[in-house]
């Protein structure tokens, strides 16, 4: 699904080269729920920008859904973002002047989708996040949790293979955060591939796999065992090195 090999991102600061990411390799299979965790300055955001095709790596190759996307022009990146990535941002990033429905329709607007089709799919996506009855509301008329759910509906509307969430509950109170987290888990169970960027260990532990970044490098990559699926994973947990999948 997603395959990064030996990716580096270098920023030139005057004479000095700053490695935001150094020799990072990462594979994410379909249906995985991967949390990328690290303190600020660890290269999380850079990695997210690269995964989300907002930026291109300085060296290394990045294959997304079987397509090499490591060296694309701005417009080509836009197409990939539109078709392959569903963004969920910390601060929701909804367009305040549009209604929830119009916001959800946005990704389809930049494809050649008929207006009927657009509406139908947007309504479907809103239904999926349980906000069918808020379709006509503007973001300001919705609670934080609802806004983030609209943003998730927007990410879902284009039916992308990957959902990329950047601190999705960072701006939410615990109740709304729980709401959004539950929604992401249910999407995962439905088979969506989710990549979650966070600095919160607790949240990262809820994912099925945890990738830790520090200082531009991946320092650990491990499967996470959950109480909820403890029964199914009990056998593997007891096995030696059962948690570790790769270095």
């Amino acid at each position: 699904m997603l395959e990064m090999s030996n990716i580096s991102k270098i920023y030139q600061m005057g004479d000095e080269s700053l490695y935001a990411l150094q020799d990072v390799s990462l594979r994410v299979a379909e249906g995985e729920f991967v949390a990328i965790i690290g303190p600020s300055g660890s290269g999380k955001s850079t990695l997210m920008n690269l995964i989300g095709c907002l930026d291109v790596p300085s060296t290394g190759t990045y294959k997304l859904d079987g397509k090499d996307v490591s060296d694309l022009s701005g417009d080509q990146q836009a197409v990939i973002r539109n078709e392959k990535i569903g963004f969920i941002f910390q601060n929701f990033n909804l367009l305040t002047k549009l209604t929830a429905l119009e916001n959800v329709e946005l990704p389809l607007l930049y494809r050649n989708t008929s207006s009927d089709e657009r509406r139908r799919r947007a309504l479907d996506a809103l239904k999926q996040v349980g906000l069918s009855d808020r379709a006509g509301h503007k973001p300001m008329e919705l609670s934080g949790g609802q806004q983030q759910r609209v943003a998730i509906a927007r990410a879902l509307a284009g039916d992308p293979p990957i959902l990329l969430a950047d601190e999705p509950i960072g701006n939410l109170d615990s109740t709304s955060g729980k709401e959004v987290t539950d929604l992401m888990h249910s999407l995962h169970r439905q088979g969506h591939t989710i990549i979650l960027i966070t600095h919160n260990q607790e949240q990262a532990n809820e994912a099925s796999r945890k990738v830790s970044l520090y200082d531009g490098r991946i320092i650990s990559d491990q499967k996470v065992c959950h109480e909820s699926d403890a029964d199914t994973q009990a056998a593997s947990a007891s096995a030696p090195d059962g948690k570790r999948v790769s270095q």
Partner: protein
Amino acid sequence: MNLLQALKMGLSGIAANKMRSVLTMLGIIIGVAAVIILVSLTTGATQSITDRISSMGSNLLMVNVFGRGNIGSLTEAEMNDWREREDIAYLAPIINGNQEVKAGTETISANIVGTVDDYLLMNSLTLSAGRSLADMDILGRTHVAVIGSEIADTLYEGEDPLDKILKVSGVNFKVVGLLESSGSSMTGSNDTRVLIPYTTVQRLLQNARISQVTIGVAEAEQVPAVKSYLESELLSKYGSSDYFNIFDQTELLSTLAETTALMALLVGGIAGISLLVGGIGIMNIMLVSVTERTREIGIRKAIGAKKRHILSQFLVESVVLSCTGGLIGIAAGIGITRLVGMLVTDLNGLVSPSVVAIAFGFSAAIGIIFGVYPANKASSLNPIDALRYQ
């Protein structure tokens, strides 16, 4: 994304800032309206002048001679020769100047024209009372005057001016005729004119020079023949065409048309500058709008908007602004032109479709030209930076 959606997006962008949009459009509205009003009034004025000249008949010739002393004068013999020709129907020597005229204690500035009866016929002037200048007045150098209606109204208010005394630079004249009011002509108002025998003027001024003669040709098609006859006559007399000129109506009309076309262009050009200023206003506002909406642009780009999507969104906005301004400007321009026509007599604007089309085309072009830079700036934003923008 098709044009319709781009249009919808642009319109909602404009609607989001109504007051600002209206103020931005105002620049274009004023510019377009100014172009239409000024050019329409100029062409309207031109039209009314040319109409008036053509109404005088197209078979008039104006002969002017220059030069010193008696050389620069037409003689009685010459004029008589010309009068005898069958293709010349009328001939009127003209000696004119502006003078104060008096009756009792009233004074008014008048245009004194020393001439003959033919002058009235050629200028389509009619008498409302009394008689015209007669041959015996010319021969006898009598002190008689035919006066315009405004002179009569001012000097002899409420009285019958006939047989009253009129003082022209201290010399008494007897009013024998009264002209009907006929408004102004190319050479000034006919209503403030005082016509007296040219021979009388010659005596009073102690100057026998006749340097200007108006000739009425019998048939319009004879004009070229008469003109060339006069030219050859005068050429043999003076030896050079520098000492005289002969104007016919068509020549006069074309000179006038040239002058006023230039005038319209000049006036339109000045108004066009305000249109340009309006365009700069649009660019200014669009740049502000791009900065304000950096985050929106970032979101749209992250979600998959290509460069051209953002470009068209902002370009549509500026073009809609300028075109709407253009349309309102056209309506305002035509309205004000009509209003001026109603309020000011003799100034009927003529709104030509080509001026409207040019003004509108220009405003649309301004929307594109001044929209490209901000729209391009918006579409070139880096989505990462734009998303981070607060």
